[in-house]
């Protein structure tokens, strides 16, 4: 064959150009901004220093980072807990019905993110559906204040990203050789131990992919906390948004953004590592027939 692996493949050129123009260049600019200062009247003072990064470590901002991380982690954990049984149930359904079940699992995702998030406002506010339902069921106390709480933000995040997690876990579970589960049963393990020792360890790459996905998208999210968290509530995403659009402090916003991006890259590398390990295992699982 004349194919030469060492020769750059021109077919990849559009994708590479796209990445350079819209990923690498903006990231490099942001990184650069992070080392400058805000000018007295907004704009940028080109005065190289590390002051912005020192400010990120300020307890005020570090606290917002930590709270965001906690919310993102909770959302990721809850999403996994809900998605795993769902994905598992779908893999157990007859093969002919699985595409339809997956379709329904992903269906909410095809409607607009804002509309889906506003729907939660309708559900959760003091005169909302949930409170009305509680009253119809005989609850006569104060209406519950569910909206504009951390719980509402987490609910919105979990709801919005759940389809991805179901898909990620489903894809590893459905690739699992069912004979591995039978082999475990055959060797004397009951269904529970088989799940804990074979199914779960072999689907961790999907769990990691789904979890990292939710965490990354949640920690940087600013729409959901703005709508469901109310004005009182701030996550890193809102902070970055504010620096760029209200406070006009681009350099500090850039520094916050860089810290966020670094965190995401580390997590994505962890997830890539899990996937690589899992793909080696799937290859090894089958006979060379």
């Amino acid at each position, binding site marked *: 064959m004349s194919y030469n692996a060492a020769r750059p493949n021109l077919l990849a050129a559009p994708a590479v150009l796209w990445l350079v123009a819209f990923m690498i260049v903006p990231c490099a600019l942001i990184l650069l901004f992070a080392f400058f200062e805000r000018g007295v009247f907004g704009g940028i003072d080109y005065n190289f220093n590390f002051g912005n990064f020192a400010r990120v470590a300020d307890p005020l901002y570090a606290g917002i980072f930590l709270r965001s991380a906690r919310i993102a982690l909770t959302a990721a954990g809850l999403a996994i807990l809900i998605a795993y049984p769902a994905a598992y149930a779908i893999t157990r359904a007859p093969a002919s019905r699985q595409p339809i079940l997956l379709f329904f699992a992903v269906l909410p995702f095809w409607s607009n993110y804002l509309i889906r998030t506003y729907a939660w406002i309708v559900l959760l506010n003091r005169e909302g559906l949930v409170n009305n339902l509680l009253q119809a069921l005989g609850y006569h106390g104060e209406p519950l204040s569910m909206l504009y709480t951390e719980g509402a933000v987490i609910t919105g995040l979990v709801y919005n990203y759940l389809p991805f997690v179901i898909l990620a876990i489903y894809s590893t579970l459905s690739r699992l050789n069912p004979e591995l589960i039978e*082999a*475990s049963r055959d060797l004397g*393990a009951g269904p529970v131990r088989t799940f804990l020792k074979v199914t779960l360890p072999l689907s961790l790459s999907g769990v990691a992919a789904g979890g990292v996905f939710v965490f990354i998208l949640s920690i940087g999210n600013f729409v959901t906390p703005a709508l469901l968290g109310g004005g009182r509530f701030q996550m890193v995403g809102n902070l970055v948004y504010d620096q760029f659009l209200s406070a006009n402090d681009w350099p500090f916003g850039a520094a916050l953004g860089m810290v966020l991006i670094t965190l995401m890259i580390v997590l994505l590398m962890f997830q890539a590592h899990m996937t690589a390990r899992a793909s080696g*295992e*799937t290859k*090894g699982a*089958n*006979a060379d*027939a």
Partner: protein
Amino acid sequence: MTGSMNKKPLLTIKNVTKKFGPIAAVDGIDLDIYENEFFALLGPSGCGKTTLLRMIAGFEFPTSGAILLSGQDIAPLPPEKRPLNLMFQSYALFPHMTVRQNLAYGLEMERLDGQEIRRRVDETLASTDLSELADRKPEQLSGGQKQRVALARALVKKPKLLLLDEPLGALDKKLRERMQLELKRLQHEAGITFVIVTHDQEEALVMADRMAILKSGRLLQVGSPEEIYEAPSDPFVANFIGVMNFVKGTMDSDGSFSAGDYTLRPGNPVKSGPALLAVRPEHVSIATDGQGLAGVISDIAYHGLDRVVHVRTAVSDAPVQVRVEADKGRGLDIGSSVHLTFNAEKCRAFDAAGSVTATEKEKI
């Protein structure tokens, strides 16, 4: 031959049928398998061998019939409670565990103590020649090595009965022949009853104490390899095991079979009428003159020790194959007219009901 007929069977399969929708993958099978036996289930692909093993192991449930282990119905037992093990066709090694962990898995499930587990795992690793690979993951093993790990993982449990689904199917010919003898040795040493599934008749002949031939979910014949080779119960079995020639003719009421102007008395007379005579290549003699079944040589294949001469006749669909010692076949040439005579005692006659055609032969 095996002296097992007076023993009590270890495994009894009683009129077992398994239907997938309207199709019976296993169709009314009755079978006894005795302790310490090396038993082979032989049949073409799709004849229900895997389904039968999976029912014994507990992964499928018979539509009707019963399976008894040591006289006890095992229908209520889930796979993990059955004192038997299955070696999967895909080997099904746990990819996230090392070889040693794969072996230890089944013993941990029995809640044996750690020292006992280590001792038994080491012992089995040694006897299957895997000690050096103990810390590798399955992805780092060759096909032959995976096969040995799968076998060791089942053997270490010391089951009463080990079911092996085409254990050598994925190996190359040389390795397969070596592993056939190795399996026999391990079975003998461990004193475990083996039920092995294969679609390779040679493999079954080499390894099995007794074997069963299956076709489309039905059991055609059970017996020792010699019994089945010498006295196949129907043309399908005759054709499936070894090389068999078929000659079309008629059976007379006096017990003689004639094809063209050649007449003989086969070992087993059948009812008179159209009939099929089966004869192995080693029981046919060939001569350039004299009497017998007339034919023309269409091909001569040299096999080292002997030559197989293919003779086209008017009464057989495929050329009749004749085995002659290599130095005796020298006078024979392609195109020359010859006469064939059969060793009548070794011929098997079948009545017209079970005729085998050349096309069916090719499908196998």
